[in-house]
């Protein structure tokens, strides 16, 4: 079970790393000398390999190893960055993603096709490994890649000690290594230090200390947690041994004890070590205070005397094998080590369910708080009212920060399109550049996840149909390379995402003729359509204007799916286009899906909530009563279509006519509409309860909410009301014309 959790974490982090790697690869093409980027790519591959090794995912390790080796050569400037190499590495990235997905399916080995693909890419990559290079770097790199062939995280601990008869016990150095947490980030591999160390003598024994590794959930694969205790047969000087660790000496704890050192030195070493929870005897053995032979004999005696409860430490003291002072130091160490825990990382991974649960609870809290407020007001006790007001302010803050937890920047989603644009433009043979704006705009995580597919579709569409071929562009006096822009910003309580291109634009006539041909509209209605209506015809099911069907788009499925996906997020999408100048698709999405500020209005006996973000103003209705049957108001010279909510919802109104009706002007996108209501009841926080299956078909309503009084009220679906108001207006016009 724990392993599953760890695997989940590995998957999530692996995907993030691959994303980073991809982004870095895309940027390195234009900036091949940026060492930071090269290192970032290398580290990503390296980390994936290491973590995969931990889980025993050999197929991942083998494949990543080849990638890493190539990257290592790139890092060492032995292989130059080329378009081919980047393309190859990108396809390796994709393949890694496939392999990861395979891991997610929980099977032990990969399918034949994936394995074959691994081999294919490996072959291609190996070309870069074999190319000769200038300089002495070759030997080193070949060594390191050869050395790493068999390496996975746990191999190092049980390297067979090779006895060298020429060396005696007194040449046994003890080296205690604690690598600093940033060693891996700085591009250094602890293993290579140990391998280098082995060239100075013979590693008699090596103990890998994994105690510092936190549980997998908290583990950062880029952080180095390992330490080593090494006993080394060597005739080299202390300086030479120290020289091995020169590059990491600043950030790591390195203790080198000479073969003939005093016991006090060992005690000092035990005190300096950061480990905890280790068995005393093991500490001692690892410190090299004891040889294995001494420990073994101690163990044997323990077994033969049957006294298995006696700790090894004491046993050793009894046998006078170790000085009791050394043992005491180790005991003290075990007691105090807990106080020196490393500080927590600043990021926490939280289960999405837990967040949802929190937000649900906050929702309940708001409803309950509103109820308390009403009771307090009714009681008329001023101190009680005051305290509930403080409380509701706090609840509001809690709500905002709880909702904020779910907000993520859209930038990472946008950045994914760098790759899409690169691939597609190569496929199409067009030179297209992507510009991203407003990547730091935040929106709800669920929305971000669901918006990626529709966006991909729009982007591909723009590239395929929107941006013209190079000759056409030059002929039209535009730059040879096409531009695609992704833009995001906040507007009136919603987030707007724009996908625009500087292509040929949408040809109205072609759309109209196509729509008529496909029977989507009649010739008569075509004449009455505005430009916007015409552009938005592309979202109708079964519509496609591309003369040629490519494998990217043009099969007439898709744009309607795009619209459906966006509408399922309570958003809208519309097209805008300038002939010859370009096309823009504008997606408008609500910021959150759970809690909003609402404006409560009364119609007859019922109450409705309007999302406050969409309310522009409230005006008195009385002034315009004479123009009642035109379904239109004159708002400071502006034509404002309106809906009388009581008529719209057919609420029974037995002989009741409100004296003071009001018009609430609401806005969604570019359209405004007036809603005629009987009472304005002020704003309050609204927890959106979904309509549920039963009421999904109700027009004009987007959800329920519960007031502080416990009453259920309906939340108005402003976009659909605006839509209906337009149709109503159109119908009235027609009736007026036929009359």
């Amino acid at each position, binding site marked *: 079970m724990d392993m599953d959790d760890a695997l989940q974490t590995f998957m999530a982090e692996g995907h993030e790393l691959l994303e980073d790697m991809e982004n870095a690869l895309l940027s390195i093409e234009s900036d091949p000398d940026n060492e930071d980027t090269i290192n970032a790519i290398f580290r990503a591959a390296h980390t994936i390999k290491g973590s995969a090794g931990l889980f025993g995912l050999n197929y991942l390790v083998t494949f990543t190893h080849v990638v890493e080796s190539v990257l290592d050569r790139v890092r060492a400037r032995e292989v130059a960055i080329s378009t081919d190499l980047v393309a190859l590495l990108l396809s390796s990235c994709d393949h890694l993603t496939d392999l990861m997905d395979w891991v997610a399916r929980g099977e032990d080995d990969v399918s034949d096709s994936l394995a074959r693909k691994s081999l294919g890419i490996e072959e291609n990559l190996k070309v870069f490994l074999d190319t000769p290079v200038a300089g002495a770097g070759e030997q080193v790199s070949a060594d390191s890649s050869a050395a790493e062939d068999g390496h996975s995280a746990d191999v190092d601990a049980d390297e067979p000690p090779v006895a060298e008869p020429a060396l005696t016990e007194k040449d046994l150095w003890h080296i205690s290594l604690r690598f600093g947490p940033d060693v891996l980030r700085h591009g250094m591999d602890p293993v290579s230090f140990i391998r280098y160390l082995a060239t100075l003598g013979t590693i008699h024994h090596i103990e890998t200390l994994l105690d510092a590794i936190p549980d997998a959930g908290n583990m950062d694969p880029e952080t180095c947690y390992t330490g080593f205790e090494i006993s080394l047969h060597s005739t080299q000087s202390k300086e030479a041994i120290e020289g091995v660790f020169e590059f990491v000496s600043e950030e790591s704890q390195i203790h080198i004890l000479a073969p003939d050192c005093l016991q006090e030195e060992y005690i000092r070493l035990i005190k300096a070590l950061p480990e905890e929870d280790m068995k005393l005897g093991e500490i001692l053995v690892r410190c090299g205070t004891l040889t294995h032979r001494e420990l073994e004999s101690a163990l044997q005696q323990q077994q033969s005397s049957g006294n298995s409860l006696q700790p090894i430490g004491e046993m050793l003291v009894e046998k006078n094998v170790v000085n009791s002072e050394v043992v005491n130091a180790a005991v003290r160490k075990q007691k105090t080590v807990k106080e020196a825990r490393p500080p927590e990382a600043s990021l926490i991974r939280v289960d999405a369910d837990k967040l949802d649960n929190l937000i649900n609870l906050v929702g309940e809290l708001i409803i309950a708080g509103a109820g308390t407020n009403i009771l307090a007001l009714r009681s008329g006790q001023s101190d009680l009212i005051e305290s509930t007001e403080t409380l509701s302010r706090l609840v509001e803050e809690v709500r905002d920060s709880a909702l904020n937890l779910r907000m993520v920047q859209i930038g990472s989603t946008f950045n994914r399109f760098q790759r899409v644009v690169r691939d597609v433009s190569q496929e199409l043979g067009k030179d297209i550049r992507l510009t991203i704006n407003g990547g730091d705009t935040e929106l709800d995580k669920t929305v971000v996840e669901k918006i990626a597919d529709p966006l991909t579709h729009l982007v591909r569409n723009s590239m395929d149909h929107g941006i013209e071929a190079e000759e056409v562009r030059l002929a039209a006096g535009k730059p040879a390379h096409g531009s695609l822009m992704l833009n995001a910003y906040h507007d009136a309580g919603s987030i707007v995402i724009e996908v625009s291109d500087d292509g040929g634009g949408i040809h109205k006539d072609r759309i109209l003729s196509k729509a008529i041909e496909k029977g989507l509209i009649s010739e008569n209605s075509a004449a009455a359509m505005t430009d916007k209506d015409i552009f938005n015809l592309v979202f109708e099911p079964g519509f496609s204007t591309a003369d040629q069907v490519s494998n990217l788009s043009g099969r007439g499925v898709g744009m309607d799916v795009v619209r459906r996906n966006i509408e399922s997020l309570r958003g809208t999408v519309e097209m805008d286009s300038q002939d010859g100048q370009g096309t823009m698709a504008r997606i408008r999405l609500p910021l959150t899906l759970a809690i909003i500020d609402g404006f409560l209005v009364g119609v007859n006996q019922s109450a409705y909530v309007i999302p406050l973000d969409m309310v522009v103003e409230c005006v008195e209705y009385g002034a315009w009563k004479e123009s009642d049957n035109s379904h239109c108001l004159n708002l400071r010279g502006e034509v404002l279509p309106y809906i009388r909510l009581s008529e719209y919802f057919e609420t029974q109104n037995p002989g009741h006519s409100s004296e003071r009706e009001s018009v609430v002007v609401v806005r969604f996108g570019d359209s405004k509409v007036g809603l005629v209501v009987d009472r304005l009841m002020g704003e309050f926080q609204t927890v959106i309860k979904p309509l*549920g299956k039963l009421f999904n078909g109700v027009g004009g309503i987007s959800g329920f909410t519960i007031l502080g009084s416990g*009453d259920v009220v309906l939340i108005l679906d402003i976009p659909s009301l605006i839509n209906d108001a337009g149709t109503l207006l159109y119908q009235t016009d027609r009736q007026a014309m036929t009359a």
Partner: protein
Amino acid sequence: MAQAELKEAVTENDVTLSHQQYLTFMLGGETFAIGILAIKEIIEYGQLTEVPRMPDFIRGVINLRGAVVPVIDLKARFSNRLTEVARRTCIVIIEVQSGDDETQDIGILVDAVNEVLEIPQPDIEPPPSFGAAIESRFINGMGKVNDKFVIILDIAHILMIDEISQLAADHTESVSPLANNEGSDESSD
């Protein structure tokens, strides 16, 4: 195909009929019964919010401790006459399957609840093929209690979410102010 459906319906009936305990309640002067296993609770009729453009038998929604629960008027569903709210009017909250694994709570409006009683299997007659006040597909059987028959309702069938939401959608369509005049004929229901 038809046979398979029939078979499925029969086994479903068997399962429902094997509940030995039933809640009896009054609806328009007649006594009905439903198996108690589906019933979550019975609450007093309280503040109910109407949902516009819904067919009459969907009375509206109530707030059940923070959850929004739709309420269905059984009498209106059977006979197109609305239940009049009186002192003993109750809402019986029933859990129904609304998808593969999902359940939804639905309230049904009844004139009064009577009691929970046991009706042994031999006392339950198959539903009459005609002559009953309500459609026979809504009836699971006729239970004999004190020499009188009570109609045992097939509540899972009556509250089939898909069917109700389809009815609701059809109704919405027909009453929408956007629909052309010929569509707004309400008696089509």
